[in-house]
């Protein structure tokens, strides 16, 4: 059990925190945002629900379906994921282009794109599977 004094000290210390200050800390922090952003699947992100609904309707119409099917929804979720990944890739490359393009910058670019590529391959496969199912 944390005492009131300890709790107050913890809260005071937390308020002093302004995030990472070193370059390597900031780089790591950016990586966390990327990892956490993509780890949330599209269907669990409320900000993307409207986009998934619209894309599901588009896929359903393209497949001559009367209403939105599970297959159309799966394809839509994968497509929205691909669009989301594309935007992240652009921001990663933008950061690289604005950097000194040193070996350290390059290593960071490679590492971030390696993670992104894994998500993208999965999203492509999901969309292909959904669109090829009858």
């Amino acid at each position, binding site marked *: 059990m944390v005492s009131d004094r300890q709790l107050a000290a913890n809260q005071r210390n937390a308020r002093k925190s302004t995030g990472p200050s070193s370059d390597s800390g900031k780089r790591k922090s950016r990586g966390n945002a990327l990892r956490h952003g993509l780890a949330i699947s599209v269907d669990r992100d409320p900000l993307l629900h409207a*986009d998934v609904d*619209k*894309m599901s*309707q*588009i*896929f359903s*119409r*393209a497949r001559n379906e009367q209403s939105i099917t599970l297959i159309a929804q799966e394809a839509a979720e994968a*497509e929205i994921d*691909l*669009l989301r990944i*594309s*935007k992240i*890739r*652009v921001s990663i*490359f*933008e950061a*690289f*282009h604005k950097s000194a*393009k040193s*070996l350290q910058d*390059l*290593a960071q*670019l*490679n590492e971030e*794109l*390696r993670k992104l*590529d894994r998500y*993208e*391959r999965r999203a*492509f496969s999901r969309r*292909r599977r959904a*669109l*090829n199912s009858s």
Partner: protein
Amino acid sequence: MSRSLVKNSHANFPNDLAEFLDNPPLVGDETIESYKSFLWAIVAGLNPANPIDWLYAKDVVDLSWQIRRERVVLAGIVKLMQTEVVRDLLKATVDAADPLQAAVYRIFNASNEAQRWASDPVARKEIDARLTARGYTPSSVLAQAYIRGASHIDAIDKRIASYEARRVGIVREIERRDAKLARDLTAASSDVIEGEFSEAAE
């Protein structure tokens, strides 16, 4: 680019897809004109009949664009590594009679000379000749640069292979319906990867 594809830079995405596809994934000095010219050339060749075809066309364009971008990064890495190799060779082979002069050269001048090698063709020729006389030809410098940057180069090669596999996968999907169209798309998108598109579009 494929002669069978017609440039149509005034076309638009269908209304329902426009909000998703209207933001070109451009970086640095890539121009929207080049991207759109390529996109609409592919669209004109594919003549998408439904939204799924539109998405496939956009994917082929974006993956081809991405492969070209990665190759530019790759060329930059090789150049960076070559510059480092030249700097280190200049340091290692300095032949000043005075040890103090040699030390000064290693500390202050070698890096500057390597930068001149990278940016000035005349200086490059002169430094290449000097290094060749010391047993290091331009091709051996290039080989050392590849060895030094192997891990980075390998990472980019893997990404390019991954984009290529996806592009081929999409073309196969299109091929199931129209083999000739798939061939035209492959040819057109290969041209942009090889960097021929900007000249062809002008």
